């Protein structure tokens, strides 16, 4: 394997490209018309156009991707996450075309891809699951309404084919259930082309904790400890940390062993993640398995020293894992903040536009994985993830302090970002204390609260606003005739004054 096609875009395509570069493997990028200037196209050795911007016409065109792979002479495809990463038919098509799919076998994707099949598989392997409807497949609304009271409220409606919170609804009582079933099915249908849903008991005060596993073709399966992913909004993860402040070594070992068991139940090969819900009494329930590289894999890399993407390639090459279970230790603590193009002061509304200026945080213990740069346009076609800001610290407290300084250094002009959300979270006493669950962001967190001990500066803000307003007035008064507005008010004034003096 000396040439790999990366069937993805954005930060994860760049992440995989970097790993290939560092392994001396040539890289092939694919791109949509909206991504001609994307970083993965610029960094790759080769790049081929897939089609128009919408994913269905570009990054989901498995036929075209396989064709390009063969044409370019690449021997393998890395799917990243999203798009084709968890499509058993794509993994199969790769195998049929004689290409290596850097991921699990199609059978394992299929077994874990259908939520109900997955539950049945892991139950048979003795893995605990959340109570809910299972096994019978596509249940009609009337059946679900009959079963619901037996499971008990609150409960969740979830898309059978789904993931990432799409087609998911929380139900408090039987009365509101028909409407919610309808909207969940609509969203599932539009997101996955499959309107089937199932019910699941809502575990209250639950934490979302997941176990990273690696498995080679020789039958070795190891776990790389846990990631705490409870800081979510609308079921979208926003902040992840490793290790979890809630998990002790006993729980870690137990969850790890169960995760390995679940993976082995489907003959799993390559990197994968078992997601669990953990209640306040440290009971844990299998949620789902993500049969691919995870967005938040860097925090595991930082605490274990394992380069997960390189290990994926190693496994796909047929080699043994570089690590045994006893080699996997926890060194320090890592936190990831997902930097999204969305406005935390306006209901997290997505924000699009050209990034006119950007300054990445840097220095000791800071890692940024990004697919954008100044001059690049954030388009409405793809997800709003601009970058992942990841820090490492000797202790969790050190990591939080480092994340604070990194967030304060980060400058992005041109689109609104959720950096202020992360800053507010890093100042939150509950976050600092590790006291949060999956409902924390939506129910007990506000961008407007001021934590005790936090200084605010309304008088400085007033001064800044007034100085900018003043200069803007001065400028318009001075302007006689000019073509177009300069983005740099100050410099403009400077130039204007030089010219007219």
């Amino acid at each position, binding site marked *: 394997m000396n040439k790999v096609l990366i069937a993805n875009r954005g930060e994860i395509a760049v992440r995989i490209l970097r790993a290939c570069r560092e392994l001396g493997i040539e890289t092939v990028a694919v791109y949509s018309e909206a991504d001609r200037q994307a970083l993965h196209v610029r960094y790759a050795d080769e790049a081929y156009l897939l089609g128009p911007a919408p994913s269905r016409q570009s990054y989901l065109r498995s036929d075209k991707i396989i064709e390009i792979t063969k044409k370019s002479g690449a021997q393998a495809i890395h799917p990243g996450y999203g798009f084709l990463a968890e499509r058993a038919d794509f993994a199969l098509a790769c195998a049929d075309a004689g290409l290596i799919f850097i991921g699990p076998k199609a059978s394992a994707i299929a077994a874990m891809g259908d939520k109900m099949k997955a539950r049945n598989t892991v139950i048979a392997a003795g893995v605990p699951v959340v109570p809910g409807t299972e096994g019978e497949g596509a249940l009609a609304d009337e059946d679900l309404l009959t079963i619901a009271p037996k499971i008990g409220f609150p409960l969740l409606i979830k898309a059978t084919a789904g993931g990432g919170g799409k087609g998911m609804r929380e139900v408090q009582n039987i009365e509101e259930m028909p409407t919610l079933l309808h909207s969940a099915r609509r969203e599932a249908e539009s997101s996955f082309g499959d309107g089937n849903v199932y019910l699941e008991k809502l575990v209250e005060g639950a934490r979302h904790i997941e176990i990273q596993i690696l498995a080679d073709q020789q039958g070795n399966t190891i776990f790389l400890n846990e990631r705490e992913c409870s800081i979510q909004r609308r079921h979208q993860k926003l902040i992840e940390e490793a290790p979890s402040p809630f998990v002790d070594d006993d729980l870690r070992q137990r969850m790890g062993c169960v995760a390995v068991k679940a993976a082995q139940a489907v003959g799993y090969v390559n990197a994968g993640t078992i997601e669990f819900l953990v209640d306040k009494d440290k009971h844990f329930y299998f949620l789902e398995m993500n049969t691919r590289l995870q967005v938040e894999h860097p925090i595991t890399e930082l605490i274990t020293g394992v380069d997960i993407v390189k290990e994926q390639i190693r496994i796909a090459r047929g080699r043994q894992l570089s690590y045994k279970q006893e080699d996997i230790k926890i060194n320090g603590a890592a936190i990831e903040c997902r930097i999204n*193009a969305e406005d935390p002061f*306006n209901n997290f509304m997505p924000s699009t536009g050209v990034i006119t200026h950007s300054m990445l945080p840097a220095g000791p213990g800071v890692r940024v994985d990004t697919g954008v740069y100044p001059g690049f346009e954030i388009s409405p076609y793809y997800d709003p993830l601009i970058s992942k800001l990841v820090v490492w610290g000797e202790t969790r407290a050190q990591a939080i302090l480092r994340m604070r300084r990194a967030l*304060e250094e980060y400058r992005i002009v041109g689109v609104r970002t959720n950096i202020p959300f992360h800053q507010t979270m890093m100042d939150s006493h509950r976050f600092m204390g590790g006291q949060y669950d999956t409902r924390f962001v939506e129910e007990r967190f506000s961008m407007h609260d001021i934590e005790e001990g936090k200084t605010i500066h309304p008088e400085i803000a007033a001064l800044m606003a007034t100085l900018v307003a*003043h200069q803007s007035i001065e400028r318009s008064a001075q302007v006689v005739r000019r073509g177009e507005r300069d983005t740099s008010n100050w410099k403009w004034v400077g130039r204007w004054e030089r010219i007219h003096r």
Partner: protein
Amino acid sequence: MKYITTIDGREFAIEITDGQVQVDGHRLEVDFESVSGQPVYSLIVDGKSYEAYVYPDEDGWQVLMEGRLYPARVEDEREKRLRAAGGSAVSESAEYHLKAPMPGLVVQIPVEVGQQIEKGQVLVILESMKMQNELKSPKAGRVQRIRVKPGASVEQRQTLLSVV
């Protein structure tokens, strides 16, 4: 120039003349510059160093500093008197035009023309960046002129419907 700047209901009297700045009567040593020609400003005032993004918005200015957003209204004395006389009923009675906050696909319009709606009611569901976003009404009123249909692609700032 004298300004009254309001943040969170608190008023600051700020006077700027010939590079001299007074806040509530106190003279300050102010060194203020935009950075890289961007709407990012560096302010050194009496030795303290601050940096903020300052954006204009419909009602005035937004100052984003150390993760906190300070919406600010900057008025000279004449403007402030005018506004005090006019009262705050203006926005409630005016027509509201819902504009797309970003390009996207209209997924659903759960209201009809002529329908009476409440403040906060969802007017349009718009899909963008793989997320469904609920666009809500900032006021109570009646729906008028729905200009788009579900399934339509819309541009940023395109007017979708109006509420009177």
